[in-house]
């Protein structure tokens, strides 16, 4: 391939890139919530430097793209100032991206992909610029200036080397690149041959400075990750300790605030939940997450069971029983383990006996458990049948976004979860094309809090979905009638309370709109770096990972090491066609098509969570 052909190929590739991106804009224009394809991936920021670098890179990304597009679109001669600014920015972009990758951020990989494209384009623009008459004039001026400033420059470089030898590599790096950028804000006009001497001169310092900084950055990352890990381990352990000491105090009959304490513990546990997710995703510390979960569970069980020992009054025991019932139903809704509610109900038995309602609870259990079980069978059978018409996001994604199916793949050769294999501006349009408008079903859809208008499905295989509750009414999917029927089945009059955790959960989840499954049409997508998102889940969003599944987060990713750093989390916006609560099914069971059914060979997918401001929420336990 000769130079001319190579240049033509590169130009075509970039034009295709721009065309692709503009297509993406059109595709996404219909949905105001759709993600801008030029959005950069967020960072988790474990290494403090990452956030600054990410901010700078994001600004430069927009700026470089605008400059390239402007120069490329113009028929006029390229201005010397514009060219030099672009040159320096691309150089800065390149080194910042390199530094960011040392911070173990997926965003660095995206910037790397983008930088390759920008560098290629800069090269093409430079060839054009150097051939212009004004450039030749500018080059002469710069060469003269460089010659005049030579001795001064050498002194500056020598000073930087001394700083480096003094052991302050960071300061040396700062000084060097300040000088470097200053020189090339003018010297960028020089052709490669003209700046050969200058480059040799500079590389005498740049080489040692860069080499010294590699271990410095690596060590900084190792320390920052170790500190982060320790911080979250301590935080989670503190909650377990708090709970254990509470149990001890109860046994000593000294703490009168059992329920308030449990309420506090439940709140703390939500925070601990975020911590466990961070440990599992960012530090691959699945063992610790699993161990802490089991310890918390055991402590909670003991705490509940010991409560009866402390209470003397029957009325007080009854009041406590109902308070615990409601609290534990909320806790149980955060589990995926089916036996959790039964386990806690057993733990509550001494309290029920002390309250004199054990027989009542028993009779209520007998009068409701079987009916609930049969209702769930009907709902599950309907959903099972309906799901034959649709795919999971992972199946759909595997079918449409694997290597060989689409020019842009999001699946590596070994990984099971989506990973970043092309720049985001290329990846997002491909994902939009492969998924938007298709039918899918998702699992475990829940409101993040009782007031939220939106529900999210639990994160599975790199995907999650957002379901708009207002859309349920709009689509004639009101669950009011089903909830009323459920209340009758639970023998609840206006004044009645459910008597068991299971019944409380049934009602709470039905009223709130937590569903086992939902299906609908994908109307939008949003992509984030999985680690950055999972490491900084907003407190309210921790429900998206079941407590007892935290330990599986990392192992389920199917990716290790560097690959795990580039995992993506993809959020789908879904217009629902049917929803299935554990005890009822509402909507069009025939929704879907067999074409999407074809898209279900064998894959898993992930879903991305985006906080309301588009940035990961910081976690400060």
């Amino acid at each position, binding site marked *: 391939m000769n130079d001319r052909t190579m240049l033509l190929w590169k130009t075509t590739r970039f034009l295709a890139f721009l065309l692709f991106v503009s297509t993406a804009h059109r595709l996404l224009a219909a949905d105001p919530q759709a993600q801008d394809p030029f959005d950069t991936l967020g960072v988790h920021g474990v290494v403090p430097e990452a956030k600054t670098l990410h901010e700078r890179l994001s600004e430069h990304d927009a700026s470089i793209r605008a400059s390239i597009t402007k120069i490329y679109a113009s028929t006029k001669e390229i201005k010397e100032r514009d060219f030099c600014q672009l040159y320096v920015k691309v150089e800065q972009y390149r080194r910042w991206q390199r530094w960011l990758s040392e911070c173990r951020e997926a965003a660095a990989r995206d910037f790397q992909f983008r930088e390759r494209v920008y560098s290629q384009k800069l090269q093409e623009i430079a060839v054009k610029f150097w051939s212009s008459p004004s450039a030749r004039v500018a080059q002469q001026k710069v060469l003269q200036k460089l010659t005049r400033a030579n001795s001064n420059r050498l002194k500056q470089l020598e000073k930087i080397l001394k700083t480096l030898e003094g052991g302050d590599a960071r300061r040396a790096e700062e000084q060097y690149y300040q000088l470097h950028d200053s020189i090339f804000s003018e010297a960028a006009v020089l052709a490669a041959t003209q700046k050969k001497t200058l480059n040799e001169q500079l590389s005498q310092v740049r080489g040692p400075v860069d080499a010294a900084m590699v271990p410095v950055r690596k060590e900084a990352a190792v320390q920052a990750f170790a500190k982060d890990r320790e911080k979250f381990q301590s935080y989670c352990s503190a909650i377990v300790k708090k709970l254990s000491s509470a149990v001890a105090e109860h046994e000593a009959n000294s703490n009168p605030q059992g329920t308030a304490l449990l309420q506090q513990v439940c709140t703390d546990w939500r925070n601990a939940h975020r911590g466990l997710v961070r440990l599992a995703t960012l530090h691959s510390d699945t063992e610790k997450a699993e161990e802490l979960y089991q310890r918390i569970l055991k402590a909670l069980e003991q705490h509940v069971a010991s409560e009866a020992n402390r209470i003397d009054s029957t009325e007080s025991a009854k009041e406590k029983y109902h308070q615990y019932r409601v609290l534990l139903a909320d806790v149980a809704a955060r589990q995926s383990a089916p036996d959790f509610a039964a386990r806690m109900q057993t733990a509550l038995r001494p309290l029920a*006996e002390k309250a004199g309602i*054990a*027989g*009542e609870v*028993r*009779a*209520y259990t*007998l*009068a409701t*458990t*079987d*009916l609930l*079980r*049969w209702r769930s*069978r*009907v709902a599950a*059978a*309907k959903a099972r*049948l309906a799901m034959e018409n649709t795919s999971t996001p992972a199946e759909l994604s595997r079918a449409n976004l694997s290597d060989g199916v689409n020019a842009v793949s999001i699946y590596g050769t070994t990984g099971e979860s989506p990973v970043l294999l092309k720049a985001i501006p290329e990846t997002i349009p491909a994902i939009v094309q492969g998924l938007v408008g298709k039918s899918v079903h998702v699992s475990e859809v829940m409101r993040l809090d009782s007031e939220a208008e939106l529900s999210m499905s639990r994160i599975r295989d790199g995907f999650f979905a957002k379901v708009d509750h207002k859309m349920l009414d709009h689509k004639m999917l009101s669950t009011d*009638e089903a909830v009323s*029927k459920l209340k*009758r089945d639970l*023998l609840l*009059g*206006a*004044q*009645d*309370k459910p*008597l068991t955790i299971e019944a409380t959960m049934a009602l709470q989840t039905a009223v709130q709109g937590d569903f086992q499954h939902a299906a609908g049409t994908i109307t939008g997508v949003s992509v984030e770096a999985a680690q950055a998102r999972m490491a900084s889940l907003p407190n309210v969003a921790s429900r998206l990972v079941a407590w007892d599944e935290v330990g599986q987060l990392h192992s389920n990713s199917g990716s290790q090491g560097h690959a795990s750093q580039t995992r993506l989390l993809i959020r789908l916006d879904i217009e629902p066609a049917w929803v299935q609560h554990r005890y009822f099914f509402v909507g069009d069971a025939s929704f879907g098509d067999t074409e999407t059914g074809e898209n279900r060979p064998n894959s898993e997918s992930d879903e991305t969570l985006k906080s309301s401001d588009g940035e990961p929420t910081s976690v400060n336990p």
Partner: protein
Amino acid sequence: MPVRTSLAEIETESLSMKTRTATGTGVLLRLRCLLPTLLCQIRLTALACSALWFSLAGCSDDQQKALVDAAKKASEQTSEAVGNAAEKTKQGAADLAKGAGELADGAKQAAESAVQSAAETASNVMEQAPDALKGAASGLAEVVAPTPGEATISVDETYIFSGAFIGLMKVPASPGESARQVLQVKSYKGSEEESYPSFFFQAKVEADSLSSLEGSKVEGDLFVLPSRDSSVWFCDSGTSVTIELESLAPSGNWKGKLTQGRLSSTSGPNMQVRGNFSAVELTVADPGLSASKVQATTTKSACIDPGRLVAQ
């Protein structure tokens, strides 16, 4: 309609006892396991008799009568044998299955020709059979295995269930609300014992005891699950099934009929449902109702009233 049990002869030579009764292969296998202990001997009697009740549904009137006589006689023999069983058990049960199935073919033929009248006749026999059992296990009544009851429900096809149980649950009222009573009829005691096909009926009622529901019609929800992973028949929104609780038979079982209603399927259109049952009343001693540290004093017509559950 499929014949679920066949007539067979069981020879228990090691016990010098010959019991001509009805059993299926499952019963034979169970007998093999039960023989080595004294308690198993007792259970043998109960199982043999209950198996007889099932098989009678597929036999002609004469055969049924003869079988009942045979069963009574066998029960008497068994009762005697039980007294000696402890000493003789060690000799082992050599070949339980020997001779089993000799009467199976005849029973099947009889069953095919007597399918229509079988259910009614069977329920008559069921009233007699417990008496035979009582005689057989005289002095050992505390350990006689409970009878499983029976039920038949026709929707898209006729399902015959391995048992039928009935219970009335009473949940005390909250302040400002009325007490809540629930009538349940189902094919299993506890969910852990559920086998397929399976059914479950539940209705809210206003009754203090099952007896007060005798002769009345009760509307409620019915579910039928033909097999573990099949689609489910159920009462769709706004529909219900009516059952009529007919009488408490001398056997202690409550007889009832599904008199009207339609069931929807999770995989197809709705269909009319019919059926009848002879259900054993659930008590707190049953696995489906038992609770640790709870004892009860219930009578046959009593509901499961938590007010009568006494915490130890």
